[in-house]
């Protein structure tokens, strides 16, 4: 078949000349200083990954200083205090500022191209998340230069991090700075979930989705459920440090192990949050290098999902030595070993793919990094099974054996695939490819250096050297092993330096690079420009470029879907989540200052609060909210009627309800909020199980009269009913009525009133949140509901204002629907909290 007629392509050619010009104009990247207003995924994705790599290098330099300190015993190169700051900032930067952002950056950069979408569905949200991360991350890292860096390790265990043992602002920089970066990660995750499920090209069913898209979907889902636990933990610790609410102080009914539960409920999935996207990248690179379809596609999907789930059942394996009953340890030991099975499935699948294509397998730089990954990660996985065995963990816990294990897993499992990615996908955003010669030097230096550095640490650990020690006596037999590790660290650094030289010599950002230089079968290697692909292909297989070698020409000629810009602005096709059937054309926002400025003021708000500049911090936060409202005001564009995208599809340009992408984003946001509240619920019950005798402590006031919770619940229910009533009675387009904003104001007042009444009830009993963990937990429930209520109230007022300005009515109602969704969720959470706080103490007598 060589003609378009025979193939029945969605559109016929030749296309009108102005279509391509329109696309280029609409999607043009801003120039000069206005580059910071850009929202195109290739621009901000490249910035994102560039900054993540910068943090990798900076944290690596800190590691070199630590290795110099440890090269010989009794060394005094750096002080003990500085050493504590070094390993804290090294770990925190690698985990929070490099690893998670790097893989999220790859999602932002690669997913639209892999899915042949013009962009992810919320480009301004991506831009906001990235700028927030860049500004907040740089400020956090800089604390190491003026003795303000935290010193409590990347896990910041209390009681060591309570004010008594960690005075000053150092720990606050971690708590507020990292809490803020986590919010940025969640914003990115919402974007990725909705992007993968709703902006796939027509025909790309779940069974045909690229493995990297599967991996990113699971990665984002894991962020949504894991990060709220650590956000709650950082909130509780900061509140204890700032206001003395004793969540972690044992003498007042708190428990420092609560922090460990919350932190590791995030911290262990975090390892897989980093690994799964890297595994997804490997699953994309291996078939290309072997010129063979991935062996066991279905098994790999199973392995990704199973790993994602099981990783949430492993958190206690970081706490084997804390005195937890033996049977509890067995539950988590079992889960820790069970997770090895899906990881093993992936390794065998990659090996089988290489074996199936062994006659065609090419040893390129990406292949070398993938093979290095397989070797290193497998060794790290094996030592992981060792430390999942409780008696062995008792011996190896907090020794250098663990340092060796997690570096094998994290560097093997994430850094090597990332370097493979740099070389493999560079042609997508660079006019020149990176050098194979320099790349091979970089690989061998890094591979040899890595094993020289970290393999001896297994022995150092088994010889008894504990983690996080500033120095050690020279007569313990650890000197030679440490010196070898230090030498290896500098060899790794040399490898990274060669890579940087390669970047400087060859990386040139822009379009026009080699097209499909590796002979890949997936859509990101279609001809690309600022608008992504000229037309959006109809997908019929997992390797469309292999199965239809003519596809690049067809797509470039505009013969597939949406070869133009029919609404005159940025747009992409939204498809159904399972079958990928076209549903509507999404009108997307373009470049703008608001995401950048909102991110800057959000970062400013958090950082000013950290240094106790409360007034300025609140002012900065208020400005951030105003800028977000300004940005949101420009969204929700009116319908442009139906547009023809080809293939017989005439799609609407406006969508409400469960088919709308914004409805999906709100649902994902509510999942985040509910995960946060479930973490609180767990914390409440956990502190009760730890100290049932002080729940409530002797001398505590009796719970408030039931009039207060019943009144609160009535306000929540009444407000929800009012929102539902308003939703059914929104006026027709171009009809403005004061009843709508008035109703929204009343609903907002009811929601705020419900929260205030609950707090007032406890205050009038004289319950003191600083007197016991019980009191602190009681006040936390309405505070958490108050947070959600604040957002819902702002959204209600925003929807009312839009109606008054003619931007919200019966048809154009997304802003109202979003406000209503969050309102219902907040009311439900509020009622749940009332039942817990007022029912549980009465239940247990």
């Amino acid at each position, binding site marked *: 078949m060589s003609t378009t007629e025979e193939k029945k392509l969605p559109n016929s050619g030749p296309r009108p000349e102005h279509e391509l010009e329109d696309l280029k104009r609409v999607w043009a990247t801003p120039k000069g200083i206005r580059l910071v207003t850009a929202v195109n995924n290739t621009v901000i994705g490249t910035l994102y990954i560039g900054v993540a790599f910068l943090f990798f290098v900076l944290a690596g330099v800190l590691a070199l200083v630590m290795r110099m300190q440890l090269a010989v015993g009794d060394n005094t190169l750096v002080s003990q205090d500085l050493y504590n700051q070094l390993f804290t900032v090294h770990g925190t930067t690698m985990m929070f500022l490099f690893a998670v952002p790097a893989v999220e950056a790859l999602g932002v950069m690669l997913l639209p191209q892999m899915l042949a979408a013009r962009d992810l569905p919320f480009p301004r949200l991506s831009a906001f998340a990235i700028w927030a991360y860049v500004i907040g991350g740089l400020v956090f890292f800089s604390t190491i230069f003026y003795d303000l860096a935290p010193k409590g390790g990347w896990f910041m265990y209390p009681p060591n991090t309570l004010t008594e043992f960690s005075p000053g602002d150092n720990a606050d920089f971690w708590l507020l700075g990292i809490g803020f970066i986590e919010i940025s990660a969640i914003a990115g995750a919402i974007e990725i979930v909705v992007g993968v499920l709703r902006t796939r090209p027509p025909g790309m069913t*779940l069974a045909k989705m690229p493995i990297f898209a599967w991996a990113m979907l699971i990665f984002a889902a894991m962020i949504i459920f894991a990060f709220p636990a650590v956000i709650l933990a950082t909130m509780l610790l900061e509140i204890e440090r700032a206001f003395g609410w004793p969540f972690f102080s044992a003498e007042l009914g708190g428990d420092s192990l609560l922090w460990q539960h919350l932190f590791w409920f995030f911290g262990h999935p975090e390892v897989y949050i980093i690994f799964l996207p890297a595994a997804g990248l490997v699953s994309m690179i291996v078939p290309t290098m072997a010129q063979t379809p991935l062996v066991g596609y279905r098994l790999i999907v199973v392995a990704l999902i199973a790993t994602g789930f099981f990783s949430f059942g492993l958190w206690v394996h970081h706490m084997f030595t804390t005195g937890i009953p033996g*049977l509890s340890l067995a539950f988590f030991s079992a889960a820790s070993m*069970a997770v090895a099975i899906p990881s093993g499935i992936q390794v065998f699948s990659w090996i089988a793919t290489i074996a199936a294509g062994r006659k065609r397998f090419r040893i390129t730089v990406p292949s070398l990094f993938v093979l290095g990954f397989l070797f290193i990660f497998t060794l790290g996985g094996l030592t992981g099974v060792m430390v999942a065995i409780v008696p062995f963990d008792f011996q190896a816990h907090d020794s250098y054996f663990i340092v060796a294990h997690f570096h094998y897993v994290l560097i093997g499992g994430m850094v090597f695939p990332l370097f493979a990615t740099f070389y493999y996908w560079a042609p997508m955003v660079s006019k020149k490819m990176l050098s194979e010669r320099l790349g091979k030097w970089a690989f061998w230096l890094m591979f040899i250096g890595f094993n020289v550095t970290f393999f001896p640490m297994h022995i150092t650990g088994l010889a008894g050297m504990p983690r996080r020690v500033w120095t050690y006596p020279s007569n313990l037999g650890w000197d030679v092993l440490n010196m070898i590790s230090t030498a290896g660290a500098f060899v790794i650094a040399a490898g990274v330096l060669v890579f940087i030289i390669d970047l400087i010599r060859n990386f040139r950002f822009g379009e026009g690079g080699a097209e499909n230089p590796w002979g890949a079968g997936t859509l990101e290697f279609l001809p690309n420009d600022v608008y992504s692909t000229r037309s959006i292909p109809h997908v019929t297989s997992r390797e469309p470029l292999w199965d239809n070698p003519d596809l690049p020409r067809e797509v470039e000629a505009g013969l597939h879907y949406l070869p133009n810009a029919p609404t005159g602005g940025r747009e992409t096709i939204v498809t159904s989540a399972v079958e990928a059937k076209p549903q509507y054309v999404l009108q997307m926002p373009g470049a703008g200052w608001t995401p950048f400025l909102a991110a800057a003021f959000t970062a400013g708000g958090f950082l000013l609060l950290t240094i106790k500049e409360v007034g300025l911090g609140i002012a900065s936060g208020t400005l951030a909210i105003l800028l977000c409202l300004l940005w949101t005001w420009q969204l929700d564009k009116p319908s442009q009627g139906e547009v023809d995208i080809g293939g017989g599809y005439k799609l609407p340009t406006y969508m409400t309800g469960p088919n709308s992408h914004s409805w999906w984003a709100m649902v994902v946001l509510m999942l985040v909020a509910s995960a946060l509240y479930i973490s609180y619920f767990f914390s409440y019950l956990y502190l009760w199980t730890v100290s049932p005798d002080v729940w409530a402590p002797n001398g505590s006031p009796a719970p408030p009269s039931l009039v207060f919770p019943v009144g609160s619940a009535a306000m929540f229910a009444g407000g929800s009913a009012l929102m539902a009533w308003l939703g059914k009675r929104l006026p027709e387009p171009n009809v403005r009525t004061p009843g709508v904003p008035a109703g929204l104001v009343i609903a907002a007042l009811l929601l705020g009133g419900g929260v205030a009444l609950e707090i007032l009830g406890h205050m009038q009993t004289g319950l003191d949140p600083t007197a016991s963990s019980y009191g602190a937990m009681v006040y936390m429930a309405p505070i958490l509901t108050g947070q959600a209520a604040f957002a819902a109230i702002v959204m209600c007022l925003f929807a009312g204002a839009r109606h008054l300005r003619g931007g919200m009515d019966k048809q154009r109602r997304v802003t109202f629907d979003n406000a209503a969704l969050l309102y219902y969720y907040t009311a439900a959470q509020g009622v749940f909290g009332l039942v817990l706080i007022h029912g549980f103490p009465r239940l247990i007598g």
Partner: protein
Amino acid sequence: MVGTFVFILAGPILWAIQLTAIYGSQSALCAAGIGTSSGGGNALVLWSVVIASLIPAGVATWAILAPAASYRLLAGERGDAAQWGFLRGVMRLLTGLSILAMAYAALGAVFLPECASLR
């Protein structure tokens, strides 16, 4: 659509329910000291682990054996044959792995004292 994802994830969801139930009941019963003997044994915990494991494992086994019925229950009508084959295969494999993980976790209750600290 949500039903389709619940169908795919049925096994891991059941595994999560089992782990929450066995860890939650063991922690609560041991912390409250209900039914704990002097040696750290606790028959209540043992039976709660057995019951909290058998029920989800039974449901998971049913899902593997009757995928069409479980899909109909959760998501309604099936899509095209290729998509159905993928969804069914992924669900079965995931559920099989989950049953293995459930059995592995529950096994500890047979060998270990339910509430004793091992050191």
